[in-house]
């Protein structure tokens, strides 16, 4: 099947995030907290418009995909995460890229 032209493809952004906590955090926990923070701050309607997906998670670093218009919203929601599994946590956005390849090469090597 022929690929969509660049002008018709959805524009995404890939946020490389790092979890700073005393304990190790699992993929399910970070995903649950991200969705909870999004729906608490913006509600379910706007959260759905952001199209958040957790693509990769390893070594307390993750790549989160969202639409290019919702980058700042996702970043704000991630900043409001204070606890994961009862432990104090910071979810720090290391960087943002337009492609998974760019995000991986620029910000993480071990994922």
């Amino acid at each position, binding site marked *: 099947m022929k690929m969509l032209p660049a002008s018709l493809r959805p524009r995404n952004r890939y946020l490389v995030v790092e979890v*700073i906590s005393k304990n190790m955090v699992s993929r399910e926990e970070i995903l649950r907290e991200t969705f909870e923070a999004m729906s*608490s*701050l913006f509600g379910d309607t706007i959260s759905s418009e952001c199209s958040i997906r957790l693509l990769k998670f390893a070594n307390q670093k993750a790549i989160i995909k969202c639409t290019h218009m919702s980058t*700042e*919203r996702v*970043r*704000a929601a*991630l*900043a*409001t995460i*204070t606890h994961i599994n009862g432990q*104090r*946590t*910071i979810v*720090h*956005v290391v960087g943002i890229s337009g492609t998974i390849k760019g995000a991986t090469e620029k910000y993480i090597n071990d994922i």
Partner: protein
Amino acid sequence: MDKNYYDICIKYIPQDIPSLKKLVSLMKYFGYKGVGIPKIILEQNDLPSFPIDIIFTNELKNTNSSKLYSQINNSSKKSECTIVVGDNEKNSRSIVETSGVDILSLPLDNKACSLDYVVAKFAADRGIALEFDLGAIIRYRGGKRVLAMIELKHRLMLARKFNLNLVLTTGAQSIYDIRSPHDLISLSYLVGMTKEEAINGMTKFPNDILYKKRNPNYIMDDIEIANRITEEIL
């Protein structure tokens, strides 16, 4: 993003050198140029050198209106930045009428501490900055966060009207409350702030406060000693 970001209003008090080092390394990792620490139990002379600028601030709480001037005067001699917490409208009015105050802090969880037109105008005229605590959006949930965001929007509206300087902060009470400057910019969008206003709140206004305190030639706004005559010349 190579700007001189400062967070000079954090509430976290490091108890010893390792906790201070941990705070400093985290702030440096997040891209801050300097951090304001309320007070420290250790002697300031014993401190090792740090990769970022450490600013010793003094936060005055429960100030008595009659003793306010002497308290602020003592504080401004000891610290590089004087932050005064306004407990109620009357107290806030007294604070902005007193010289030597650098930052006015009005807690977001107290309805009596709401910013009004008079305080905003006096503060703007006297060059007193207002603490803009985005940590409330991080720490609070539900109705409390909604009320805090309403108050922040109200303060932003008054700040724009009277050209009041807003100093952005996380108001961190622990190192886990600290957020990177870009995260604070993203949070500031939620209350209607522009990117430029947010960056100024972390770069220009804290730098202005430090410039006033650290420059020996500074007298007041637009007045500085150009050439100091040394004793040798005399």
